[in-house]
């Protein structure tokens, strides 16, 4: 028979393993969402650079596609792991985040350039919050993209900022997604 110290050590090992499994599941699902958003952000910024007048329509379409994508990722994950990851609450949360972003842009009278920088920084804020709760990868990805976005905002002139954002936002999310898959 073991003593209480050894039993406590064994329980700590169990808790640590369970925490790792949960983080691994979160990373598995999140990596797919990041890869999807990496492609969408790349496409949205390039399309906005090519046809700047239609930028708003591109982004409305991209957010709509992302909702369908989240549902598809949820269905795929559920078929593999029998765990429901997205339900109506997640959709509502996503819509509230987007609605608050629109609210801020409207009342802040943001210019298109400011909006180009605002949206990634705003969304990455939530990634960083997720990092505090679910794993440092979210924190690293969020902080890196925010820093690169600010560098672009202050140093890349004119509409070229959209090309910069295609690379750092689209590329950053894609690399982040691949990194999470390997973690």
């Amino acid at each position, binding site marked *: *028979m*073991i*003593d*209480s110290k050894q*039993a*406590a050590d*064994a*329980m700590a*090992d*169990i808790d640590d*393993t*369970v925490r*790792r*499994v*949960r983080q*691994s599941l979160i990373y598995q699902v999140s990596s797919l969402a990041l890869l999807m958003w990496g492609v969408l952000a790349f496409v949205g910024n390039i399309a906005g650079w090519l046809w700047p007048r239609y930028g708003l329509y591109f982004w409305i379409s991209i957010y709509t596609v992302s909702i369908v994508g989240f549902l598809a990722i949820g269905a795929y994950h559920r078929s593999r*792991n*029998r*765990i429901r990851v997205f339900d109506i609450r997640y959709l509502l949360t996503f819509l509230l985040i987007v609605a608050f972003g629109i609210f801020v842009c409207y009342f802040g009278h943001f210019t298109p350039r400011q909006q180009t920088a605002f949206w990634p920084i705003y969304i990455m804020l939530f990634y960083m919050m997720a990092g505090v709760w679910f794993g440092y990868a979210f924190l690293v990805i969020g902080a890196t993209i925010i820093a690169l976005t600010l560098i672009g905002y202050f140093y890349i002139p004119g509409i070229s900022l959209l090309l910069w954002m295609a690379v750092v936002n689209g590329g950053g999310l894609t690399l982040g997604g691949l990194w999470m898959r390997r973690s």
Partner: protein
Amino acid sequence: MAELDDIIHQPLRLKIMAALNALPAGVGLEFARLKKLTGATDGNLGAHIETLAKAGYVQVDKAFVGKKPQTTVTATAAGRGAFARHVATLQEIIAGKQG
């Protein structure tokens, strides 16, 4: 007085069972992911999975995904029950009811 399960009590086997038990019933983990989660080596992990399989605590399924062989390990109902009893015994020891 409940007894600790000698098969589960070994540190790596305890981690394997904890990882598999954290998933819904019937859902398994691929060998490579289990290796990463437990920090074990290939040989060590394989040997301990075999011990757990012989006891009927885990089920091992081998399949090909494309051209790559893939081994999936899943906790059985007996394994889940044994793990739950083992954890309950550990908690009793910590609470000072045993030991």
